[in-house]
């Protein structure tokens, strides 16, 4: 039954996700960052997999853009692994969305992730453990 519901929502017309991510190009370039077409595809596919894996149903898009906006100014984001870091953060976001004790809004969750990201100097096991244990 949950599968049926997921299909209903996944079949909805959504904005062109690729175009939405490409629109961020100017913003992230201010921080010396960029996303290739392959990396954009990786993020889109990764998001879908993360949603499925976390037992969630997507109502609307926009999370990847929000994560990029929120994290692109961090000193712990490296140009060389920008896309993989966003990929990991996306995964973490959906994991927490599904498992957090409190029902955080998307913005609240991203804000908490950003704070922890800065405190733990980027992605690490400690970063994930801290969020898992404290949310």
């Amino acid at each position: 039954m949950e599968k049926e519901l997921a299909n209903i929502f996944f079949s909805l017309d959504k904005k062109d996700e690729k175009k939405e991510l490409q629109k961020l190009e100017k913003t992230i370039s201010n921080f010396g960052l960029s996303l290739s077409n392959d990396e954009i595809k990786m993020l889109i596919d990764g998001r879908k997999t993360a949603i499925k894996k976390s037992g969630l149903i997507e109502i609307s898009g926009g999370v990847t853009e929000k994560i990029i906006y929120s994290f692109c100014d961090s000193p712990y984001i490296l140009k060389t692994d920008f896309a993989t870091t966003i990929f990991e953060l996306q995964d973490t976001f959906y994991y927490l969305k599904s498992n957090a004790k409190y029902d955080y809004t998307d913005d609240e969750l991203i804000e908490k992730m950003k704070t922890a990201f800065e405190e733990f100097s980027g992605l690490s096991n400690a970063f994930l453990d801290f969020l898992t244990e404290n949310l």
Partner: protein
Amino acid sequence: MDNFLIENNSFYLKNILLSDEEKSTFNEKFFALAKRRIELFASLDHSSIKAETAKEIFDGTLFVIETYFQSNKENILKIDFSTAFNEGIKIIEKKIEYYKFLLDIAEKSKIKFQNYYYLQTMKNLTLLPNLYDYNYFANKIPCDIDYQLAFSVDEKILGIDYITEYLKRIIIENKIINSFDKKTVFCLLKKSFVDYKNLCVNLAYPIMTNALGLKILNEDIKELNINKEKRERIAEIINANSEEKMKKILDNSANELAFDLNIFDDYSKEYLKSFAKNLYPYISLSAFSSGLGRIFTKI
């Protein structure tokens, strides 16, 4: 997916919908409505929600829609489902008002015997009107109902319908327990259960059973006592009659019991009759094998 809802989800719809056209129209309109309800629940703050939450909203929406169509079947092919949903909500709000009316009766007739589960459940029932989120989870009961009834409500019945049914039965059981001398009931409860105060047991059960047994024997129900001699006489009656005849005897006894207890409304009489009918397999088996000592209690 045409008959998906009807075949897998709906308790009521099976009795409401008739033609394939109706089923198909229903599914199409319903999925669109459920999608809107889930989106509304998520609002702008959540781009995703747990699949199980979505499923609960889906079921809650179905309950509201069914509530509307139970009395408006003729509108299935005509009405916009958002309107049907809003009308269903109005019906549920009326049901909540009726529930409050029943709750008041239940509170006033509350029995004087202390049983943890009874007291806790009665307390929880008073919280329900404030906790019941019928806009999204109308099929749910938002509080624990642990106290067992002598004759349980069908678990296919959901939400406010279940809880109203439960309350009606509690009121009948309160009335039955309160109809007897407190000291006599106390002695029967002490004999029936090791610790009636703390066990999850139905307090009306031994009273209804013994009273029914006494009615089978045409004896005075007030004493609530069924000793060995009376049990043997009941066993003789059971063994001497066919199943059909015995069920008839039980039915008549339940009817007479209702009269003795000043129970005159059809619903309450039917409850006693259902209880009596439900008792038949137990008493017939015990009469043949171990005796009726486990069913009818000696004070």
